């Protein structure tokens, strides 16, 4: 048991490490740092002569440790293979990562860890609310459909339609309908309302909820159809089993049969969606935070991508990969919790 858990964890960590290393090497190898820095200087008129610029470039390269070779060994057509030893960017980055340091942002004078923690303060409530909301709503809808066949047909047709809506379209539609002074101005169109210091501290969670309502709802709408369709299909399959007839024969109502007998069996295939759901929500938060101007993870990621701020980009992508691995582990635990006969480990 312990060995199996250990092996599994090691494999997951190896996968994460390979992903991050590939990202690091590809992103660093594909841009020339000197040209990159010079391009930023050329817009700056205050920096005068060529020599001054060159000196500044050298200083900045040294500061971000970009003057070192990229990997342990390098290949040049003139020199062949050359061994650089441990004095290289990859080794530096990898040992830093082991110590929990993600480096400093190129653009802002802060460490990546600070930036990520600040962003997570907004993204964590958003994604968790959306996950819990879509899960609960999916349960409610699928259970409701299971004893109302006519409603079920209508609801499933509607959900199939919703499934084809891209997230950004849903968010734009909600924004234009419900946060627009010309139609209905029920919700704020952007931000988190942190600047308006009206109200005491106990109003803070309520106000945050109010500002997060539209982003959360759009995430829920997009992630709901898959969940409902899967859960509904599983419930329909289970309803054809003989034990349902037994339960009905002993006098359990339809509702009780579904809730107490069918649901637990029907949950298993739906659990397989969990490892997709959480990273999908994080990916969705890129779009939603961009549109609603929330300073969260997704926006940090998109901005880091747009400005080629590689340390931030790597940190954010690594965090997303970690979320996926954690969701996978959580799913395995839940499998055993729901059906103790299953031995995955």
């Amino acid at each position, binding site marked *: 048991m312990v060995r199996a858990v250990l092996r599994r964890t090691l494999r997951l960590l190896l*996968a*994460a490490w*390979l*992903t991050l290393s*590939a*990202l690091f090497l*590809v*992103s660093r190898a*594909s*841009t020339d740092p000197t040209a990159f820095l010079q391009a930023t200087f050329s817009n700056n008129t205050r920096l005068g002569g060529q020599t001054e610029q060159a000196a500044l470039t050298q200083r900045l390269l040294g500061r971000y440790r970009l003057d070192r070779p990229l990997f342990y060994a390098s*290949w040049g*057509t*003139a*020199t*062949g*293979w050359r061994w650089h030893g441990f004095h290289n960017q990859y080794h530096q980055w990898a040992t830093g990562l082991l110590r929990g340091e993600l480096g400093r942002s190129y653009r802002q004078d802060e460490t990546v860890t600070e930036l990520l923690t600040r962003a997570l303060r907004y993204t964590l409530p958003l994604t968790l609310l959306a996950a819990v909301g879509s899960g609960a709503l999916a349960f409610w809808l699928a259970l409701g459909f299971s004893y109302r066949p006519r409603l079920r047909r209508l609801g499933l047709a509607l959900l*199939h*339609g919703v*499934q*084809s*809506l*891209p*997230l*950004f*379209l849903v968010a*734009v*539609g909600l*924004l*234009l309908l419900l946060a*627009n002074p*010309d139609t209905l101005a029920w919700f704020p*169109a952007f931000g988190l309302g942190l600047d308006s210091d009206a109200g005491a501290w106990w109003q803070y969670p309520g106000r945050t909820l109010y500002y997060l309502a539209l982003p959360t709802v759009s995430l829920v709408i997009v992630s709901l159809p898959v969940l409902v369709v899967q859960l509904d299909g599983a419930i329909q399959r289970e309803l054809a089993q003989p034990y349902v007839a037994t339960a009905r024969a002993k006098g359990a109502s339809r509702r009780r049969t579904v809730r107490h007998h069918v649901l637990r069996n029907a949950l298993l295939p739906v659990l397989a969606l969990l490892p997709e759901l959480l*990273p*999908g929500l*994080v*990916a*969705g938060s*890129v*779009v939603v935070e*961009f*549109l609603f101007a929330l300073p969260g993870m997704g926006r940090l*990621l*998109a901005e*880091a*991508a*747009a400005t*080629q701020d590689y340390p931030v*980009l790597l940190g954010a*992508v690594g965090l*997303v*990969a970690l979320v*996926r*691995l954690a969701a996978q582990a959580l799913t395995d635990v839940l499998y055993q919790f729901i059906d103790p006969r299953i031995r995955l480990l």
Partner: protein
Amino acid sequence: MAGRHLVGPGAAGSPIGAPEISPPDLTSINQPPFGPSHWLGTDSQGLDVGVALLLGARTLVLVSVPATLVALLLGAAMGSAAGFLGNSGGRLPRRAAVAGGLALLGFAALAPYWTLAAAALVPATAVWWLLGRTRWGRQAWGFPIDAAVLGLATLLESVPLLILVLVAVAVQRPSLGGLVALLGLSCWTGPARLVRAATLQTVAQPYLEAARAAGIPGWQLLRRHIWPNTRHVLLVRLPLTVALLVGLETTLSFLGVGLPPDVGSWGRLLAAVRLAPTDWWLVAWPGTALVGTILSLQNIINRRIH
């Protein structure tokens, strides 16, 4: 679906007759639709929404269909290799592996001096010949193709597609062709898994054993006996992958990354509404077109199955 009949011909016809890009009409910005000159209205820069829709449809066809073909072909190749060869099917004779490795190492170490590098072939050939005398050298190492393909797919899938493409686009800043290649390279995992499963199912059939026993070579087995049975998986997947890529492409251009700025896109048209929140027509027309396209692509499948 009405959407299919409306959008299908429009999208398919537009790459052939690309409309002349008319200069933005700065005298009539934010025009509501059904006006005299601009039927579908204009955005805040005076760009005609109808022309932008047509240009966007053209981009959609030029990006998502080739990318789908790349993804499906790559997925088919990877999936059938993984399913057919399995973990022991890809065999590499040990002497060839050792001699080849030696030759490569020699080349790499002596690369600046070409004559010396060519001389590295001599000891490699000697090793190959010597190993051929031993029993160990005549046996083969199995290369676990199945595990390799699955591992690669898992690695790619460990980051959500949108984030993966976003990061790759930011690092590379690709052209239109580069974007097609990138989308294809990042979407092959799903088709590959499906084809692998179908191949595994087919390989277990008795007629394949019979064909193997009849001495048909592996390539012929794959071509004549396996692919006819795995093809339908890809055909069913085709419209769904196109729909996925349509959604991805419009999302990317909505976020303002990916496509070069002079290429029109429905996503960019939809993003224009952030500048003019009262212009409902900037959302209504491209939104309807987008939903119609995706819905009809998904509906093709339902028609074919039922």
